[in-house]
């Protein structure tokens, strides 16, 4: 944790943090619905279905990292290196909003499982 005086000199802007989190959570919600469609069409049952969701959510985070975070870091080498410049920790990038997306995933999964399975 940075000291209070360091925070005064280079403060953490709350709006940017909120915006970053919102982008990540929105993306996670939308892709969760799409992954539900995929899992339903594939006819996945209980555990493989959830593993499918987790694996593809991690893949989404990896793509966010590779296509958004990495170029921004490379473009501007001053300032914090690593994910802490944009998120409060790598934990947030990889698993942010995963439980909120779970309900959307289960909804579309159930719907398409029922539709396709006939």
């Amino acid at each position, binding site marked *: 944790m940075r000291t209070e*005086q360091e925070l*005064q*000199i280079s403060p953490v802007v709350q709006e940017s943090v909120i915006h970053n989190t*919102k982008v990540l959570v*929105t993306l996670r*919600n*939308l892709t*969760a*619905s799409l992954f539900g469609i995929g*899992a*339903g069409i594939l006819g*996945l*049952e*209980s*555990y493989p*279905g*959830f593993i499918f969701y987790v694996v593809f959510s991690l893949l989404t985070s990896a793509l966010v990292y590779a296509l958004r975070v990495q170029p921004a870091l490379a473009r501007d080498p001053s300032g914090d290196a690593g994910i802490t410049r944009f998120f409060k920790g790598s934990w947030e990038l990889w698993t942010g909003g995963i439980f*909120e*997306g779970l*309900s*959307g995933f*289960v*909804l*579309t*999964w*159930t*719907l398409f*499982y*029922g*539709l396709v*399975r*006939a």
Partner: protein
Amino acid sequence: MSKLLDPIPHHHSYGVLRHYATVLMATAPKKQETPAIREQRSLLRGINLRQNANAISPVAFNARRDFLVTAYESGQFLKAPEKKGEAAPNPMSDPAAMDGMMGMMKGNMMMMVPQTLIMGWINAFFSGFVVIRLPFPLTIKFKSMLQAGVATKDMDPQWMSSISWYVLCIFGLQSVFNYLLGSDNAASQTAQQMGQMGPGAGANMFGPGVDPDKQFQGEAENLSVLAHYYTLAGVEERLLKSLS
């Protein structure tokens, strides 16, 4: 066996309608007269000074602090200076607060009534059969929750009745509503619950039943014990270090 089609109407358009209905029904904030506003704003000014104290030079900070502390202690900003020792009026009798509470209750009504209506409609027309099967297994205990109208003993809990499918739709589509209507939309329940906790914490400062004089005294004490550290002290060294 032929497959049953989804009998539930599009939950999506209903949520969008609910959002706009709530926006239209929201009451406008009530106007307050100058002494009341001045009382609240002066307290906010003290809090702002405390939080941002390190951004101004020691001289400027001391000048502001001395002015505010003397003003707080003499009760200069009070709405009704002659009532200095008494507590604020009771929340039930104070009309200004009633409007705020009515607004919140109206918002809650807007949220609950359509959901209750649709649940009753579904129970009336779509009860007694299962509509869809969950892809993952559940324990027997969930049967009472998920198969409310169907009186079988041996069917898996995986088969859901229409009402539980409706509940699943509500939860699943909240994220879609979040995306479509922006993050402060009125169709999202989680945002509404958090909104009730958030402004509740902040509104307690100016809500009825709190004595403004005591708030001022507390704020004056906070200001006098604040240790001031000027952020720009030593800035020349930092600048030279970053350039070298």
